[in-house]
């Protein structure tokens, strides 16, 4: 089962875990991304996320399908939040259940790495003295 969601409300890892629950799974990995308080020595006040939602869902679906094929994942759940998030809040959760544990780790790492490269979601870091679109410039 593939469970892809983009939400404006807080994410809950229990939702992702229940989406991937399976008696055939030997291991489940969960990646939880959180908003960090500092970037390059500057204090972050909040992050603002936006997305081209229909395409973002398609790209997340592609990641989940690839994982299912390559690592034999039984279930994949990817939830991403958009809107304004404060320090400590959760922008992304990825849960992957596989028959054996090694595949679960590898597949989950692939998922978050690829999400950061292909999924049309953007975040702006807001500091006390300005704001910047993350990763926009070399």
């Amino acid at each position, binding site marked *: 089962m593939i469970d892809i969601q983009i939400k404006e409300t807080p994410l809950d890892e229990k939702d992702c875990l229940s989406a991937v629950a399976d008696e055939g799974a030997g291991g489940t990995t969960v990646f939880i*991304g959180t908003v960090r308080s500092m970037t390059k020595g500057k204090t972050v006040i909040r992050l603002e*996320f*936006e*997305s*081209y939602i*229909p*395409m*973002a869902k*398609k790209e997340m679906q592609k990641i989940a399908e690839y994982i299912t094929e390559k690592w034999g994942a039984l279930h994949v759940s990817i939830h*991403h939040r958009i809107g304004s998030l404060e320090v400590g809040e959760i*922008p*992304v959760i990825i849960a992957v259940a596989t028959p054996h544990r090694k595949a679960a780790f590898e597949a989950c790492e692939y998922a*978050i790495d690829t*999400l*950061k*490269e*292909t*999924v*049309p*979601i*953007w*975040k*702006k870091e807001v500091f006390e003295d300005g704001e910047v*679109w*993350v*990763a*926009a*410039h*070399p």
Partner: protein
Amino acid sequence: MNVKLVAFGIARDILRSSEVQMDLEENASISSLKTLLSKRYPDFEKLKSLRLAINEDYQDDDYKLKENDEVVIIPPVSGG
């Protein structure tokens, strides 16, 4: 032909709008659209990358645009 461009993130800041209309020659490629964009809005040149999505999929530079394509400017993504 007239093409509607939709912009997100820093691309919207560069265009100062979330949508612009551009007049292109028939069958213009994505590559020629990118050139036109950079000429009109030089700040696009400063970005780490610039991709265009047509109808919700990334397309290569040689893709030929058609009337009524939904063209979305995808500046470097930063989800997660």
